[in-house]
């Protein structure tokens, strides 16, 4: 997108906001809107982070005065948000209650949405800080992009259906009903986090930052070395993670029955490489691009729960659904991945020993 287009878009946004604010000034605004944002202050300007520069530019563009703005009421149009609103801004009302419930589910689905979760993972294992951290596919960057067409199921998905997909694949569970509490709470939470994000515009911060192509094709053997040196401390020599004292969730399993299934986005080597490069090891993401690719291949060359779309034949399932950078259906260490998969959709999950 070139600069002049950006200016026009930003100008329209200001114009639209000004007109809307004016209308709100006349009518007092819809009650639910006032309730929803009661007590919510504007998020503090972000001073650090990779997206600050870009977001800052958009913010400047949006704050340029336009002819119509002069006639609008004194309240200025909100700039594009540079971060999610602080937790303290969740309002103390019915809407706020739903938002908090959404955050709770997101942080600990095994406890708060246990009917729909079939493994030992949590949403925030891959979307840090309960979906707030912009380097790990934040919720505020996803919300404005739906409804959207998805190649994965070849139709337009709204946000509720997208969330259902997370449960079916990443959580190896079952899709909660779209009008039920779980999906409603998660939607409210995502909507609240996305305050100030332009709807339908590709946000700078979306998904995981792209990782450069590796100089060498990813290698299982090199990946195993990376894993033992950089990952095993937390995820275990066998990749099965570690429980906290008392059996509470600790470090997540990366393969096997307790991890994401063969239909989850993270089983793709490119997706895992991008996540690992941006975020792992936790708090000290210092792997090279090559190391990230190698260890992503190693992790995703282990058995995990079956693809829920499995039709009885690994070969056919692979041909139909796995035309991408994944290892499903390929032979690793003499075994075809997918032939010995634990079942998919194992809910309710019996507590792990």
């Amino acid at each position, binding site marked *: 997108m070139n600069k002049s287009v950006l200016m026009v878009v930003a100008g329209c946004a200001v114009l639209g906001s000004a007109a809307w604010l004016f209308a709100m000034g006349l009518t007092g605004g819809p009650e639910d809107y006032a309730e929803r944002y009661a007590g919510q202050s504007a998020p503090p300007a972000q001073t650090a982070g990779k997206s600050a520069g870009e977001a800052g530019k958009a913010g400047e563009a949006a704050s340029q005065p336009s002819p119509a703005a002069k006639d609008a009421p004194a309240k200025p149009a909100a700039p594009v948000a540079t971060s999610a609103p602080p937790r303290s801004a969740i309002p103390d009302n019915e809407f706020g209650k739903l938002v908090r419930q959404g955050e709770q589910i997101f942080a600990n689905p095994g406890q708060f949405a246990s009917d729909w979760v079939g493994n030992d993972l949590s949403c925030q294992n891959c979307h840090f800080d309960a979906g707030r951290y912009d380097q790990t596919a934040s919720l505020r960057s996803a919300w404005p992009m739906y409804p959207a067409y998805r190649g994965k199921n070849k139709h337009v998905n709204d946000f509720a259906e997208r969330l259902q997909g997370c449960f079916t694949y990443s959580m190896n569970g079952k899709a909660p009903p779209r009008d039920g509490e779980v999906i409603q709470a998660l939607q409210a939470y995502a909507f609240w986090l996305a305050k100030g994000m332009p709807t339908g515009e590709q946000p700078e911060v979306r998904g995981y930052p792209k990782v450069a192509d590796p100089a060498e094709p990813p290698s299982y053997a090199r990946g195993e070395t990376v894993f033992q040196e950089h990952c095993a401390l937390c995820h275990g020599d066998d990749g099965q993670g570690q*429980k906290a*004292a008392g059996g509470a*969730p600790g470090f997540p399993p990366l393969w096997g029955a307790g991890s994401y299934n063969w239909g989850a986005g993270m089983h793709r080597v490119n997706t895992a490489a991008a996540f690992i490069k941006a975020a792992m090891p*936790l*708090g000290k993401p210092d792997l090279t691009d090559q190391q990230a690719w190698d260890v992503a291949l190693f992790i995703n060359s282990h058995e995990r729960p079956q693809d829920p779309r499995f039709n009885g034949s690994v070969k056919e399932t692979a041909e139909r659904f796995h035309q991408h950078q994944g290892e499903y259906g390929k032979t690793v260490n003499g075994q075809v991945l997918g032939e010995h998969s634990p079942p998919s959709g194992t809910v309710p999950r019996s507590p792990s020993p």
Partner: protein
Amino acid sequence: MARLSVTLGLCLLFSCAFAQQPPPPAAGSCAACHGQEGQGTAAFPHLAGLGEAYIRRQLDAFASGERANATMKPVASGLSETQRQAVAAYFSSLKMAPADSASAEPPDGPGRELAVHGRWDQELPACVQCHGPDGRGIGEDFPPLAGQPAGYLEDQLKAWRAGQRPAGPQGLMGHIAERLDADDLKAVAQYFAALPAAPKESGHE
């Protein structure tokens, strides 16, 4: 020597079977500050239930001086390798007593915020991500923080910042402490000190 190894081996073997094994003679020097059962005292940390590998690593670091501590250096230096291992295995096998049910809830505030959520605009993970949701540790290498003396916890964070304690496996804690300021250290130390070291009702979680 052989007899000691056999004894040690048996101790390790039976440590799971019996709630309490007899303390190795070398553990006698620990009790004055850390308590007979490793439950800690007002200013000194508890050792009961810490990872065996973790305790052993600390004893080695005290002896070598990498972890600077005037009290612990002579104690650790005075233990043979076998004795250090025996002491580590012993305290690791003990459990903390259930907390007094009247103990206060930990304070809400910046300490809790850091502990539970971290500070991701500085790429700082939450403490609980590695030390467990209740701060009671994960596995051998991530020790419990809950119920340790606030002064002790704060001193450790300061020591990492000052390079007076090894940064830990993969240098994780050294890297984290760099991003905490003096107020953070105090707040987060107070938060974990206020948490119970063991669940309030034993066996009920």
